[in-house]
């Protein structure tokens, strides 16, 4: 059953009671929350995802977003993210309940799923080949990701690139795309009415934050891994011409290692998986100012047949 087949009342009741069981990529989640905006966010953004009755199944992560106390329901209302009894974060204002769930889920994956090398990067796929987009915050990574997936690329993840340590393939985790500040109107304008972006939360640690619903096709194919083909560092520069410039593989490796959540946890195997990845991809710096031109450049890359690599 898909989440959108649940009536809003049914969803709210389940969230308040035993929780809903949801499958996102390789992970099963059990989510509990009595906060209306969390139910609303899930309805808006997770409609295409598979749900189950949690009573008879295993869940990787048992999470909840709720008020810390009765008092905090009414006076300066706050919410806590709870991972099976643990509180990894300080409470946030009620208005940020939905983004807190998304951040909390990112934390769950990045702190535990060491069967993957987990790189802090967006990742999209076309024609069977995946482009990893690592970049510091503010470089326009999420905006570009959103534009690409609105233009026929498949969303694998906007935040966590999961590289299978056994196969070297990238496993999709196509959860909603987080958009910040100026990105929100930019993507609304770019998409016409194709994109659904939920109600923004204001004054978070990252400014104004909203989430874009992942494309239906990306969710349908969420169990289909992809071959890494490119590592591309996007940078939005006002007025810049679109330019794709080759980049040193060694420097790229160092950047990925530093921006992986669990590179050091994996020890020697982290190095092996990282070098294997770098051996399979072309590395680029990518400057752009116009989203449609950027998408065209990416499409061109995807349409160029892969060259045989000298080993």
């Amino acid at each position, binding site marked *: 059953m898909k989440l959108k087949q649940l009536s809003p009342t049914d969803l709210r009741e389940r969230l308040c009671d035993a929780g809903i069981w949801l499958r996102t990529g390789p992970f*099963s989640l059990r989510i509990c929350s009595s906060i209306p905006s969390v139910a609303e966010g899930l309805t808006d953004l997770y409609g295409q995802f598979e749900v189950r009755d949690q*009573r*008879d*199944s*295993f*869940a*990787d992560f*048992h999470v909840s977003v709720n008020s810390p106390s009765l008092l905090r329901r009414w006076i300066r209302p706050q919410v806590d*993210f709870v991972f*099976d*009894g*643990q*509180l*990894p*974060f*300080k409470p*946030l204002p009620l208005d940020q309940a939905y983004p*807190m769930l998304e*951040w*909390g889920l990112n*934390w769950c994956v990045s702190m*535990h*799923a*060491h*069967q993957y090398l987990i790189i802090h990067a967006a990742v999209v796929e076309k024609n069977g080949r995946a482009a990893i987009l690592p970049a510091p915050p503010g470089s326009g990574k999420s905006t570009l990701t959103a534009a690409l997936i609105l233009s026929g690329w498949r969303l694998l993840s906007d935040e966590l690139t999961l590289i299978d340590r056994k196969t070297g393939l990238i496993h999709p985790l196509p959860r909603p795309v987080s958009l910040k500040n100026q990105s929100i109107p930019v993507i609304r304008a770019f998409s016409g009415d194709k994109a659904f972006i939920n109600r923004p939360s204001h004054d978070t*640690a*990252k400014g104004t934050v909203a989430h874009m619903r992942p494309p239906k096709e990306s969710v349908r194919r969420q169990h289909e891994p992809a071959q890494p083909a490119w590592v591309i560092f996007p940078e939005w520069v006002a007025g810049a011409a679109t330019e794709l410039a080759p980049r040193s593989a060694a420097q790229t490796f160092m950047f990925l290692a530093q921006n992986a959540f669990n590179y*050091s*946890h*994996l*020890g020697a*195997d982290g190095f092996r998986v990282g070098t294997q990845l770098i051996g399979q991809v072309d590395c680029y710096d990518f400057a752009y100012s116009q989203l449609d031109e950027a998408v065209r450049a990416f499409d061109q890359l995807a349409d160029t047949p892969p060259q045989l690599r000298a080993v």
Partner: protein
Amino acid sequence: MRQANFLLARTLRTPDMTTRFSLTQWDLLVRQARQAGLLARLQDRLSQQALLETIPQPVRWHFDAAATLAHKQQIAVRWELGQIRAALDGLDCPLVVLKGAAYVAANLPAASGRLFNDIDILVPRRLLNQAEAALMLAGWNATGLSPYDERYYRRWMHEIPPMQHLHRATVIDVHHAILPDTARYFPDPQKLLSRIVPAGDDMPGVYVLSAEDRILHSATHLFHDGELPHGLRDLTDLDLLLRHESAAPHFWPRLMARADELQLGRSLFYALRYAQHFLDTPVPAKVWEDLRSVTPGRIVMRLMDSIYSRSLAPAHASCNDTFSPLARQAAYIRAHWLRMPAYLLIPHLFHKAFISPYLDNNTPKPA
């Protein structure tokens, strides 16, 4: 006292029951083991019994991931011990490692699946300042404690405030004794240092406490440190140490004599009692007889059982009952009660309850 009945304890006692587990039971087992910090150790246990194949495919990665982390930490601990040894090279004393890091250094079964928050070392008190200075020169610095905590450590504790490395963020606890000076019982650190043994050929210059002293330290730690989130993990340490050492000739008489000498008989009694309660640790009948002089009366015993059967269980909702929060509070207070006299304890607990929470700034905001 009936043996502990929650799923993790039952599984640790009889691992082959996993062959009959439903997915719902696996769900609960993983959650309890994660909360107790025992996922990797449980994986090791299942692996030794050739039971890894009983873990259903969707559950398996949780164990493998925990084992990956534990493996990495053991390598890191060994490497870090080399760095600490080099930093303390000029000091006129051997490097003595305690607890988890000692089990790793000495290649003991108790190292299995062990996760680490810090490395504990023991330094003679007269060399404490020199040791601290040497570690600072090598990059370990005082962590950001509140002035109250800093003062508390320096004045009353058996260790100085934890030191954290600037680049690697590893934490060292430098001890000058295993219990505070103010504790009811104060095992003389000189006695412990007089019996240290080399950790092993692959760890030159690194020493650990003697087998009996390691066990007594582990037992004492359970009740004096109030570090209850790790209660069950620490009990499994003790269980593994005992099962390993008790094969040696005359082990139990030596242990009892040493407990007596160090005034730790009562702690040993409780530790054995709860190891048996949770983990079915084998203890000969003769030992219980010999411990009679330190066995408390019936009423005290029942009170202690009701406290520790709850507070040493994992802090997971499924292992709690109505009295668990109270029991944890009681165990915390008792740990402090054993560590200092009332005139110090009462102001300290007052500060911890009503003043520290408002100064706490350590929990991160999500990013």
